[in-house]
């Protein structure tokens, strides 16, 4: 190395803001590979990409039903309040209702990008996270819901995930139970909170205070156990009393039927106990889980009123993949191997032209070829190749070319001749 790197130990290293993360090396490689896989699945189903800005008007996001507490806001030069997007579906809904409103529907869009959410007061979540997702717009039929769920399953399978499941629920089941009780919003959200935590004691106390009918009580407690395969639908039908709940079950059954035509039902759990979900869901809601992730790795659902809030009455269903969680599942299970450099091409200055065309040839064969641009001895080159995990060195000399395989973790240059494969052209 002709110039030594300069270091300034007296200067403090710049720090990232809390909640921000660098994604580097293998992590970055796997992340982009995950995105590539997803994109290719989405495209194969006829979805086309939509790119929306990282920030929107705050009001747009509020209209999109997003939680103001989650948004990171700032203002533009006119004093208009802006926010980094905490979700990618609301911006897609805005686009569909405005710039794409005259396009034929159903419309299939996919997106990938980063979302930003203000962390809780203990600052343990990261602010920025990567998502990719699909939206099927303009179809209210169960076939559309099933298509989105099927793509979710296919995507995870194509990424190599093994232990995963999709939990399907329906917002109408829970809504139906409370629809006839005529409760104030605060009581509904309190009930929802106890059901979300599956806290039977809390729910008991809360319901006692609200003096609900025994029927409502029985349905709410019954809900907590309704998770499993197809039989859950029949159990639920025996329990549910309201028309809204029963219609939701019929809808869920139609979706399940189609998923069984897709032959995907071994991945599907019917989960009526789930009441969590974004504020804009109106029908099917689903979440994907892997045994290697502590939280869901994807979520989705039907949102028939969201696009209407931006001025176009239009049903839609979609789902979003949490790229960070999926990446960590893939890394935990070693489902993707980070790619190494196949060959390092080194040559004396006199043979540069030959070396460059050889490298081009190797790349055309699909290999990853790196050029040695800094003058190094063979010993140094081997040490460098070893530390980088480079598979082989192509040494171009006046006496001909030789391919040297770099034995992993063997920095000694001594046995060059022994491992020399004698590959000369």
């Amino acid at each position: 190395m002709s110039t030594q790197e300069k270091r300034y130990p007296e200067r403090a290293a710049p720090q990232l803001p809390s909640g921000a993360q660098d994604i580097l090396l293998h992590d970055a490689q796997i992340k982009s590979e995950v995105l590539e896989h997803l994109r290719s699945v989405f495209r194969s189903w006829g979805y086309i990409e939509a790119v929306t800005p990282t920030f929107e008007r705050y009001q747009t996001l509020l209209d999109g039903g997003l939680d103001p507490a989650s948004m990171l806001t700032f203002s533009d030069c006119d004093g208009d309040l802006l926010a980094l997007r905490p979700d990618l579906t609301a911006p897609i809904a805005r686009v569909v209702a405005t710039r794409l409103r005259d396009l034929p529907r159903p419309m299939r869009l996919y997106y990938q990008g980063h979302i930003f959410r203000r962390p809780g007061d203990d600052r343990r979540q990261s602010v920025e996270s990567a998502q990719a997702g699909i939206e099927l717009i303009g179809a209210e039929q169960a076939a559309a819901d099933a298509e989105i769920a099927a793509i979710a399953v296919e995507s995870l399978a194509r990424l190599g995930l093994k232990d995963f499941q999709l939990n399907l629920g329906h917002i109408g089941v829970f809504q139906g139970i409370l629809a006839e009780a005529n409760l104030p919003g605060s009581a509904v959200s309190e009930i929802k909170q106890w059901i979300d935590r599956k806290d039977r004691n809390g729910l008991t106390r809360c319901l006692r205070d609200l003096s609900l009918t025994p029927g409502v009580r029985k349905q709410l407690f019954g809900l907590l156990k309704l998770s499993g395969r197809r039989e859950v639908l029949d159990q639920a039908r025996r329990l549910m009393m309201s028309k809204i709940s029963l219609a939701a079950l019929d809808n869920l059954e139609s979706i399940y039927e189609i998923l069984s035509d897709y032959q995907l039902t071994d991945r599907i759990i019917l989960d009526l106990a789930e009441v969590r979900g974004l504020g804009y869901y109106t029908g099917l809601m689903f979440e994907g889980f892997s045994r290697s992730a502590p939280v869901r790795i994807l979520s989705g659902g039907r949102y028939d009123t969201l696009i209407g809030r931006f001025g176009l009455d239009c049903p839609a269903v979609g789902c979003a993949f949490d790229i960070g969680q999926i990446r960590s599942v893939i890394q935990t299970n070693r489902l993707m191997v980070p790619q190494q450099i196949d060959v390092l091409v080194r040559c004396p200055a006199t043979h540069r032209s030959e070396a460059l065309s050889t490298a081009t040839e190797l790349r055309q064969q699909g290999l990853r070829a790196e050029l040695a641009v800094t003058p190094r001895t063979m010993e140094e080159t081997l040490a460098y190749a070893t530390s980088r995990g480079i598979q082989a060195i192509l040494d171009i000399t006046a006496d001909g070319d030789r391919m040297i395989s770099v034995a992993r973790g063997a920095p000694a240059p001594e046995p060059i001749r022994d491992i020399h494969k004698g590959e000369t052209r």
Partner: protein
Amino acid sequence: MNRLTVALPKGRLLRSAMELFQTVGADFGSFTERSRKLIVDDTTGQYRFMMAKPFDIPTYVEYGTADLGIVGSDVLMEEARDVIEPLDLRFGECRLVLAVPSFRASEELARHKIHRIATKYPRITSRYFEALGLQVETIKLYGSVELAPLSGLAEMIVDLVETGRTMKDNGLVPIAEVASSSARFIVNRASHKLYFDRINTLIERLTEAVPC
């Protein structure tokens, strides 16, 4: 069948927590609550137990390192982790109280003053006073909270009382109950979905084992 991992709280709740799991068939072998081992495999092959500090248990469960856990609701309220809490186990019952030195017991909490309160539970304490419309300064301590008003670090404390002995011995009197607490059974959100039948059966058996 893989083992479900259970985080159990070291300290005052451990014996009851172990007994509870024994009633549903777990076998701790030679492990007792005085053992120093941190990870214990149930000899029947159903569970792996992890012995952790009570305040760390919600964290282990939220991050999925443990599928299940037992922890006091005081800790759950303070840590505010995103876990499922399906069951009140009704042991380890105690109260979180606001206490003052006995010579100040007759003083009123004043709106115009900012009181200084020492506690292991700053979040619960702040919430409590916010609800009363009072501003307070909470000082986080890690133990022997009774020392704070005696030494002049704070005017009052919010702390756990089981029998009230320690407070009494240190000349403190409770003036209000901030919250009541008992042991809870908690579950990681993804585990609850992935092992629904197993965990639901366990919840039912634990419910039977819990006195009403």
